[in-house]
């Protein structure tokens, strides 16, 4: 079985992140493999270990991104991918999801397609969750999104999606795309052996010309979605507790609500 796992190199959001004046994310700081992408890597690792070893299965980690994105590929190789493919071209910078999915589709075709394409349900930076469906549409294959688990039987893949009040099981023939949430199997921390061996695995780098794509079809200028502005979210401040055991609890609560203009001031009931 041929599996391609889409991985993304994202800035380390916890450490902090900045936007450039044009509304694009400043990617110059520290980055890492998008955390949700560890789940499809784990799923792929488990799938190939189940499938008969003789049936030559391969897991390819595919990314589109700047030079530093190789780090995401390296991590993917440590986590069990056999081979890395890195699409890197200055012209791709600033692409919207349509542009990125175009590149990914071309890359996957270039690689001769796949039986199963796995990816994380969204990325930590842009969080649009658009790539999985756009890519599936471009490749004209079915997509099962937001899966909490998946199983391959013969030429079919079954995925389970958990919603707040239901579990939905869906099945589709291969080739197909499945995106996974963090409800899927927890990723395994790679052994030192795996880390060491990952250094010896091949990473192929392609540019747009290799994929037969015109630079004008992607990038900032081709993007049809523009970010107009970015504002930091309003931070919630810690709540206040009123001790219910004290005698004046009710008075204190009322005073608090009134002072914060949450109930009408004065007796207008």
């Amino acid at each position, binding site marked *: 079985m041929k599996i391609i796992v889409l991985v993304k190199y994202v800035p*380390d959001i*916890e*450490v902090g992140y900045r936007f450039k004046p044009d509304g694009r994310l400043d990617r110059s700081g520290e980055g*890492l493999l998008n955390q949700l992408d560890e789940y499809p890597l784990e799923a792929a690792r488990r799938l190939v270990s189940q499938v008969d070893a003789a049936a030559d299965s391969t897991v390819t980690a595919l990314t589109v991104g700047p030079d530093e994105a190789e780090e995401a590929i390296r991590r993917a190789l440590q986590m069990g991918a056999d081979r890395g493919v890195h699409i890197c071209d200055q012209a791709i910078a600033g692409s919207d999801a349509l542009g990125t999915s175009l590149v990914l589709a071309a890359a996957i075709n270039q690689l001769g397609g796949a039986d199963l394409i796995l990816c994380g349900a969204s990325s930590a930076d842009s969080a649009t969750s658009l790539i999985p469906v756009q890519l599936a549409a471009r490749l004209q294959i079915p997509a099962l999104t937001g899966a909490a688990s998946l199983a391959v039987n013969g030429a079919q893949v079954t995925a389970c999606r958990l919603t707040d009040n239901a579990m939905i099981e869906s099945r589709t023939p291969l080739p197909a795309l499945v995106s996974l949430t963090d409800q899927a199997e*927890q*990723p*395994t*921390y*790679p*052994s*030192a*052996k*795996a*880390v*060491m*061996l990952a*250094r010896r695995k091949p990473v192929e780098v392609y540019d747009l010309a290799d994929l037969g794509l015109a630079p004008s079809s992607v990038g900032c200028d081709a993007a049809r979605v523009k970010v107009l502005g970015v504002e930091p979210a309003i931070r919630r401040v810690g709540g206040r507790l009123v001790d219910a055991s004290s005698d004046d609890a009710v008075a204190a609560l009322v005073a608090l609500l009134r002072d914060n203009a949450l109930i009408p001031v004065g007796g207008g009931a």
Partner: protein
Amino acid sequence: MNWFGLVGLTVTAVGWTCLALRVGGFVHLFRAGPAELPGSRRGQPWRRTAAMLHEFLAHRRLSRKPLVAVAHWLTMMSFLVLVATLAQATGQLFNPRFELPWLGHWLIYNWLTELLAWAGLGGIVVLVAVRLWAGRARLGPASRFFGSHQWRARYVEATILAVVILVLWLRGIESVLAGPAGWARFATTAWIGRLYPPDLSDAVLAAWVSTLALAKILVSYAWMVVVSLTPTMGVAWHRFLAFPNLWTGRDPNGRPALGGLEALVVDGRVVDLEDPALDESVLERLGAGWTADLTWRDRLALATCTECGRCQEVCPVWQCVTATLSGPAASDTAVPPATAAVATSAAAPGGPAASDTAAPLATAAPASTTLSPKLLVSALRDHVFGSEPEPSPLVGGDSKWAITPEVLWACTTCGACTAACPVGVEHVDQIIELRRHQVLVAADFPAGLGTTFRNLERRSNPWGMLPRQRLDWAKGLSFEPPVLGQTIESLDQVDYLFWVGCAGAFDERGQTTARALAELLHQSGVSFAVLGEQAACCGDPARRTGNEALFAALASANADYLNQAGAKRIIVTCAHCRNTLANEYSQFGGHYQVIHHTELLADLINQGRLVPRNLGDGIVQVTYQDPCYLARHNRQSAAPRRLLGSIPGLRLTEMAQSGDRTNCCGGGGGRMWWEDSGPRLGQRRFEQAAMTGADMLATACPFCHIMLADAAATAGSDLPVRDLAELVLAAVSPSGQMAEV
């Protein structure tokens, strides 16, 4: 040739042949193990010899049980001399009046033989009694012999008993045959001969001698055959193997293998996990995953274990489980009677019914999921000596000797077992080797640990906090501590580097301790600097959980940074940082004088630079938790006591297990970092502290602090748990009051 002689010589030949074959088998098996780091087990031979002889003659490691020590010493010594009596008995098969040439008439030899025979008799009787008492069935898993092969031990004891009795008895009859002229030689045994009727003919007496001599030979060689056929009978083999095992201990000075761990070694070479040219075959063999990975010294140690259970009885995990089984009235001496009686025999971890102790055990925790260092050693030993069609993994496999993950990951590396073992088994190192394989090769370890590893990898601290939060602890100090790289450029400008550590930086209680120490240093005019955002975890959590790759990355980066900054004297508040920086950074080129804060504070008080007064809050009695990595691994338990002693009006009430015999809080060995359903060591230790009736529980390590304070909260107790630095800060302040946490 008489029949006696024929039988005697035949069993002699069989006995020695079996022994020779077995010794050959041992040598073969030991040599099959991979090599150790050159020099690590054989360097400094004179020192080693002296240490071994010291151990042998002084029985230092048996000193915790003085009666057993004396009895064992006498029994052991009797064996040395009584070997000669075996030769004597062989001669007597042919000639009842046989005397050993030259020796036989030497008075001193005769007296020594008698003395040692009586001593051996006394010794073995005591040992038999101790085994019967300490192994009595109703103790269940609280007995140190629980899970030991008791019948093997009884057989060995019976043999010794029979041999010494026969020696004395024979001498009694010999004295009659020798006539009055020889009586001086039989000073203490002649009376036995006089028990025989005086008119017995010499022929009858001679027949007695031959018969008893044959009995002695049969008993002795039967033993030789049995132990040769049973290489796993450490209770017999230790009398030979303990010598090489002690000689090849990790520490050439004969101290238990505690403190810093050895580097990761494959085939006698230190493995550099950063080396891109590392051979793939080496990557398969990191740590101990299969019997083939166990070095000759590992194998020797496993074969030497006598199943005496000293390690089991002091293991906090085992103690905690057995104490829970026998109800909350957990006694400090760890011999709680098991209540209900459910007959069961303990299995070696996951292994065969290793025990013939019919042990009653209340709602038995299966030995396969409860850590006992003894049962772990027995399981490994059986794995090495057992024959399996296919090699099977040492941990988690299908083999009946496999160690379960629960057992492997329960260990806190507290070192109590290694410190207690009389024959030099190095449990902590062995357990770390097993963990190394699980982490570095098999990638099979508790899930919670994966988060810790990721945190260490990404954020250089186990909590996963951000580097910019590193200095948050210092907020609220009465002064600004100099920060290396920000306010000062080189450590030459200050007396000390204060290594705040991850707990000091990120944990609320650790922060309080760090602040208290900083204030005290400031008050006493000690100049120091701290690290800023460059500070990283010392690596102890990674190393103790087997993640040598992560440890090496952290330690080498830290050592480089410290060296570049000119660090020489480092103060720490954490027993784990203390151990790692002082004992393990030399493997990465870092050589520092590392001073635990209790030591420094005790000195400052001693010099009069800090003057403690009464503590407020009515604190009169304090009990103190010795951190394992301070008191046992690094033999530092005096300074904290000096410090407590210097606070007027304060009384130290010791727990039963204290000093270098301290009982673990449950936070070491990486166990701080993941939760499971295993025993709650912290709670048990906290109960022991509370039972002293003290007004306060003092600690000197942030991990002890966290574990015990959490246990106090769980128990709903208001016994405060504080670091010694907080105590001193309160004592030197005018009010004597403790700061709020």
